[in-house]
């Protein structure tokens, strides 16, 4: 199978500080890959490479090569808007816009020039159904998104990311601010979404990584320590650091 994302010896520097050290991982389409590791290990930074969110920070220098669907996304003439349409993102805390539920989901379409109401309606409904939120909100699409519960808001954010039909979804600890029931719903959703999307998820929750992911990569202080199939990595870690981490010796 063709790799959808590849990274080759990627390093990232914040001014003098090296946050990522020669990371090389390839991702298969329609899989869930979990990035795990202690705080500050660079897993979020690595995730943000794929939709170039690190560009927002001053004095960032990146070396190495990142390709998505065969294209080097750090080429000079890369269209970042196009890239971000292809690579959706869900953040740690639910961060809906100060708009109605409908407009939240339609946002990505609108900023990309879609204003035809019938198209918008169709896509919004489709996305909300995919994120398993439709039944809960179909009667209050005009209400403010802030009236939803935290878990609903996070699923709304997923719907918002799905509406522009990306092929890859990045999730940065999507359930860390949620209660267990909402977390279970999100995990179920991730399992569903795998059929249509490639998902890369950063998580602090090792059980979660074990439950939802096919592959797992363990990061430690900017370095990739170990990667492999999730089952294999959890049951039979090759590196002592990985073993210490997943058995809870540090974290």
């Amino acid at each position, binding site marked *: 199978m063709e790799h959808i994302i590849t990274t080759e010896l990627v390093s990232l520097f914040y001014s003098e500080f090296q946050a990522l050290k020669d990371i090389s991982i390839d991702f298969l389409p329609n899989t869930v890959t979990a990035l795990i590791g202690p705080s500050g290990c660079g897993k979020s930074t690595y995730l943000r490479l794929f939709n170039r*969110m690190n560009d927002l920070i001053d004095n960032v220098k990146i070396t190495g090569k990142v390709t998505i669907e065969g294209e080097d996304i750090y080429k000079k003439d890369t269209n970042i808007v196009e890239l971000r349409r292809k690579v*959706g*993102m869900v953040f*740690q805390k639910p*961060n809906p*816009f100060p708009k109605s539920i409908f407009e939240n989901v339609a946002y990505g379409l609108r*900023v990309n020039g879609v204003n035809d109401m019938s198209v918008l309606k169709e896509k919004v409904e489709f996305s909300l159904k995919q994120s398993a939120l439709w039944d809960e909100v179909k009667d209050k699409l005009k209400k403010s998104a802030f009236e939803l519960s935290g878990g609903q808001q996070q699923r709304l954010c997923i719907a918002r990311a799905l509406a522009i039909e990306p092929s890859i979804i990045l999730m940065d600890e999507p359930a860390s601010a949620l209660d267990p029931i909402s977390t279970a719903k999100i995990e179920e959703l991730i399992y569903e979404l795998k059929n249509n999307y490639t998902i890369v998820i950063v998580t602090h929750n090792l059980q979660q990584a074990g439950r939802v992911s096919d592959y797992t990569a363990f990061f430690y202080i900017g370095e990739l320590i170990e990667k492999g199939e999730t089952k294999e990595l959890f049951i039979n870690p090759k590196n002592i650091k990985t073993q210490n981490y997943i058995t809870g010796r540090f974290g």
Partner: protein
Amino acid sequence: MIKFFKSTFEKIIEGTLFLSSTITTLAIVLIIVFLFREGIGTFNQSPIEEGFSLVVNKNNPINELSAQQIKNIFDQNITNWKTVGGNKDSIILFNLDNISNFYSDSAIGENFEFLPQCISDYTEKHSGVVAFVSTRYTGKGFTGKILTTPKVTITQFISQKEWFPTAQPAAQLGVLALILGTLWVSFGAIVIALPLGLATSIYMAEVANPKVRNFLKPLVELLAGIPSVVYGFFGLVIIVPGIQKLFDLPVGETALAGSIVLGIMALPTIITISEDALRTTPKAMKEASLALGANKWQTTARVVIPYSSSGITAAAILGIGRAIGETMAVLMVTGNAAVIPHSFLEPVRTIPATIAAELGEAPQGGLHYKALFALGCILFIITMAINLIVGYVSSKKKYNTR
């Protein structure tokens, strides 16, 4: 023992704090009470100066004339009694200074001791006469009729257009022109200041790099510290002649000049408050927008500004509040003509400028003096309403961000 001192010390501190807040509250209440007591005094007075009255022929059916009618009669805009509801008879204005034209010195008396009889006689002989005379001459033996004048009412005060508090015989106390002048100049100021201030705050919050921002921010705050008389002087020397030349006007002191000066003065308020509001937009919300393929401008227009709209509204309203209450600079550049403005290129007069300009020459305790306090009350009510609106807007349930 130490415990006793400690608790006494605490009590003293507590007492001092209580005392200071009491004094502050008392001062505010005193100012408001004083303002309104003096201001409301306006509405118990006749617009005719105390010690004088208007007299007419005793057969004249008119019993009462309003301040406006009196003015029109004495300005000879009304020349027939019929216009004010009387008989068809032309009005004869009688001026006491001209009495020697009608009566010989001996008839008046060496020390004017027969003056009352002369006035009495004159009003009796001419059916259409109206005279403005001291009440000294209309006592016992006066055969004419003394007109009454209705007291100044609040509706009259607010709805009449003419502000001429020193007019003889009847003061004209219509503040409509002043209220409209104030609102007009403030409206112009906000039209100028809001786009400029908003653009600057967006630039500072979203575009400028930290270096530029750290330079710009103190500069804007410096703008707030310049005394208003300096702004007025700047307006008088630079803006007023500029407007005069640009629009080819006879005078440059116009509402536009006031609006520009006030607009500049309102800028720091608008910029600082709306910039603070813009900067409270959570970074995560902006990132979410960018991650959906929105560019920087789309993010600013569709996420950052809607998110901080209540702060921006508060900034705009506070800016208006600053403009409405401003005195010195406006006094210097607007030309101070108490007429209802029709364009920005006409002189106008604002409420604060009127108070500042006229309080010094108004006799203390007189009608004019009290009317200025009533103006102060109106200004107070307007600015208080603005503060209440700001309170409401900024307390309006802010979107939960979590």
